[in-house]
């Protein structure tokens, strides 16, 4: 592998890092230059990711390692699982940048916002390509640091309070992961990720392994919003719409779920985890989070908190899929990582447009807005139906694989969970659609069609289309589903 290719993973992390630093020191009024750098950075990174995707497709392995302190190695590695999450975050970062430029047209502190925005994406890229537990912890904590300023961007007392709660949860999680990492490192030396689990790990006594496992799950579970560690997610909805869209639908929340997948697949190995008997409790927790999240979403009167609780529940599908010891269920779980990202980001974009254009924040204000903002509500409907799991949308595909996979391994209760959650999804999404399309707008004060401008409308439409395509063309080789199958094939072996 030539020098440049080995450096590819590093370049992907550095691209958005450099963009972030440059933008950070740009004076406020240079909006044009800032947008140019932003878009250039996003597209260049997407290109690099696609190049690497092609490389990983035909079996090439990218790795970059540099020793740091005594015994610690900073390692970046690109394999099938990391490419899935990396591609998702690169694509959605480009779209969200476009959306954010339009959304924050006249607000203050945009240099600071976009600086931290790019840093956050490079942290996500780092999490996805981490080659060992130490690098994962490094980027996991850096992700916390760079997302805090975004959560508190508005500067209102509520957002600062929400930011402090966010830090309390995530730093607590980070401490748990640090303890586990140090514990394993002290016993094993470098803790690297291996295909189907680290062999050296199996030599350790069981109590140590189980203790470390639950520490890691607790640490990563904070960002994956597992019960009872989910408290920060609904509260940090005070952040601006682009932040909620990318961070809480994709980057931060998925980083937690991805890290759990990484620990189970590439640290413990799926068989060894099953042997330890730790998968069952995790599946139960995930199940409970799914139902609890959907139930709480039902009672929310505001749009964004409702979506936030829906995210809490949806992310646990991924955990449920991974924790169910069966190849088909894990395909469903991994594919949902992408599907949920696409659908949820569309919903957040549309809710952002509604708030921006018509000042709609509450559920009961949605009456007749389908007529006034047809395209936005169209995308919203597509995504909402997808979330409920109506075929042929992406949501249906992942739920279907989850259900059949669970049935195959005799975990019938999982079907119950999925059914209950689907019903709850329907109960908190359908009334929105009904109000939007079938009710008269209260008073025709605003002009007939107050559709969002191109920069705010484009991204949701693209993501809605991607969500639809992920469902329709699931069978093709390029779809997230087939990519998930490839990952599962590696993890479960012959």
């Amino acid at each position: 592998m030539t020098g440049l290719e080995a450096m590819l993973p590093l370049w992907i992390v550095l691209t958005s890092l450099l963009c972030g630093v440059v933008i950070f020191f740009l004076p406020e009024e240079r909006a044009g230059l800032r947008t140019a750098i932003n878009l250039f950075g996003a597209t260049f990174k997407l290109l690099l990711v696609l190049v690497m995707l092609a490389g990983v497709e035909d079996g090439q392995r990218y790795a970059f390692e540099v020793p740091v302190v005594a015994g610690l190695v900073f390692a970046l590695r690109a394999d099938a699982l990391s490419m899935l999450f990396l591609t998702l975050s690169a694509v959605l970062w480009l779209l969200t940048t476009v959306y954010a430029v339009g959304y924050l047209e006249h607000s203050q502190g945009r240099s600071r916002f976009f600086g931290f925005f790019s840093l956050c994406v490079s942290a996500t890229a780092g999490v996805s390509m981490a080659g060992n537990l130490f690098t994962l912890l490094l980027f996991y904590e850096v992700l916390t640091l760079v997302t805090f300023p975004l959560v508190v961007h508005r500067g209102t007392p509520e957002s600062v309070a929400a930011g402090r709660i966010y830090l309390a949860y995530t730093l607590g999680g980070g401490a748990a992961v640090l303890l586990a990492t140090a514990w394993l490192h002290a016993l094993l030396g470098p803790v690297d990720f291996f295909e189907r689990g680290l062999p050296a790990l199996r030599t350790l006594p069981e109590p140590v392994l189980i203790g470390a496992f639950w520490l890691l799950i607790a640490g990563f579970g904070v960002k994956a919003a597992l019960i009872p560690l989910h408290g920060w997610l609904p509260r940090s909805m005070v952040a601006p719409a682009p932040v909620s869209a990318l961070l809480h639908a994709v980057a931060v929340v998925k980083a937690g779920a991805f890290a759990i997948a990484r620990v189970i697949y590439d640290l413990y190995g799926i068989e060894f985890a099953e042997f330890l008997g730790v998968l069952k409790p995790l599946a139960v927790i995930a199940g409970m989070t799914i139902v609890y999240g959907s139930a709480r979403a039902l009672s929310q009167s505001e749009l964004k908190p409702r979506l936030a609780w829906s995210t809490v529940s949806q992310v646990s599908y991924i955990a449920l899929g991974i924790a169910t010891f069966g190849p088909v269920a894990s395909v469903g779980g991994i594919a949902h990582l992408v599907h949920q990202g696409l659908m949820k980001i569309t919903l957040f974009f549309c809710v952002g447009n509604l708030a921006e254009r018509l000042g709609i924040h509450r559920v009961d204000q949605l009456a007749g807005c389908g007529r006034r903002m047809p395209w936005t509500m169209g995308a919203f409907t597509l995504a909402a139906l997808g979330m409920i799991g109506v075929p042929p949308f992406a949501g249906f595909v992942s739920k279907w694989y989850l259900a059949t996979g669970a049935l195959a391994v005799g975990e019938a209760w999982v079907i119950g969970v999925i059914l209950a959650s689907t019903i709850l999804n329907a109960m908190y999404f359908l009334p929105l659609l009904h109000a939007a399309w079938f009710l008269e707008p209260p008073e025709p004060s605003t002009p007939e069609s107050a559709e969002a401008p191109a920069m705010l409308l484009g991204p949701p439409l693209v993501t809605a289309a991607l969500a639809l395509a992920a469902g329709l063309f699931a069978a093709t080789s390029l779809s997230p589903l087939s990519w998930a199958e490839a990952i599962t094939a590696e993890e479960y072996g012959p």
Partner: protein
Amino acid sequence: MGTTAETLLAHLPIAIIVIPLAGAVACFVLPRAARALMAVLGIAGTVASGWLAADVLEHGARGYVVGGWAPPLGIALHADGLAAALVALTAVLMTVCGSLARPRRSGDAFFTSWLFAWAALAVVFLSDDAFNVYVGLELLGIASVALVASPGTRPALHAALRYLAAGLTGSLLYLLGAALLYASEGTLSFAGLEDAGGAPAAAALAFMTVGLLLKCAVFPLHGWLPGAHGCAPAPASAVLSGVVVKSGIYLIWRLWSDTLFGVPADAAANLLGALGVGALLWGAAMAWRAERLKIVIAYSTVSQLGYLVMAVPLLRTAGVEALAGVMLLAAAHAFAKAGCFLAAGAVLARRRSDRLETLAGLVSQMPIAAFALGVGTVSLVGLPPSGGFAGKWLLIQASFAVHAWWWAAVFIAGSLLSAAVLIRALAPAFEAAPADCASRAERAGASEWTALAIALGALALGPLAGPWTSLVTEGSIP
């Protein structure tokens, strides 16, 4: 060329002490040239310290006999890895912060005290003689008091007096300990005390340790620090918190970690560890209640010093790895704390108050100062990729290596505690500026940029931990 470089290299240890001393006297005699002298000698001192560090890294510890008489008659300097690292750290901080100092009145006296403090630190780190270290500690005490008293306001004078009283008592206890040691062992040089034992040596160790704990404000003897570091001008408190306070702890490490004192010290070492935990908790509790940003940062020094004292039991058991970790923590803390104090100083200078409730809008008005404080907090809390994290990581590894896992839990709980404290203090900075005052970001001054540079230095210590740890563990405590 070879020989002159060789002789210069041979005289490096004493040169590092003489350069700041000569600078101090020169500033006193030629008051108008004080600032220029400070700059020139600052650079000379940094070059010499850097050269010494590089030389020790390559060839191991380097000794120097002052006045031609070897111990026990004369005084010897001993520049091992640990001492060379600390001397280099001192040089960097003293030069950078020195260039920022803007004493309003009697600049000559300020820079004289500044350079005396630097020379005294060099003596304390390099000297191998217990009594010579006493005079160094005393010179350091008086020079630091001068820096604390330089604003000339009543609270500053009160804090300076309290600091001086504590320093004097501490030095007195240390002197009594040194005298007892000399009487029982017949030599004052640390190197010769390998097999010291018996009642006089134990009493000496007790007195010296309590004296040093008082001089470096370890809980419960920390009363004087918050006032002193809070009132001192920002560059001074940066250096006081960053390096001066650590000189006492360096001596404690040297006394407690050597195979010195056959006296059954393990129980007492754990007592020191408990004191460290007390400092951590008490510092955090007091910082939680403080209203001014500089006082919060000062109390966080008290709590961070707890880490350095807590490492003493680990130094005795886990040896080299613990030393690397604790020195990395000390260096990262020095840079991060200096960055925070300089930023807080800039905030105080521009907004006339650093009370926490008036911090609203800091992020939009003084982005560079806010960013420096943020980066400093990252290292103080010990989040990756900062040097603080690397230091804490090594300490946790060391505690696991000796199966003392409770120390690991304490280190992690401590970092969460300091996170809570510092975030509570800095959170208001993220709030939007109140409507009346402008929320335009004003041009950042030199001190803000320097604060950011130093804080980023603490961050850079993470990836650059390798060379620092190999220097520190070079031929030092076995």
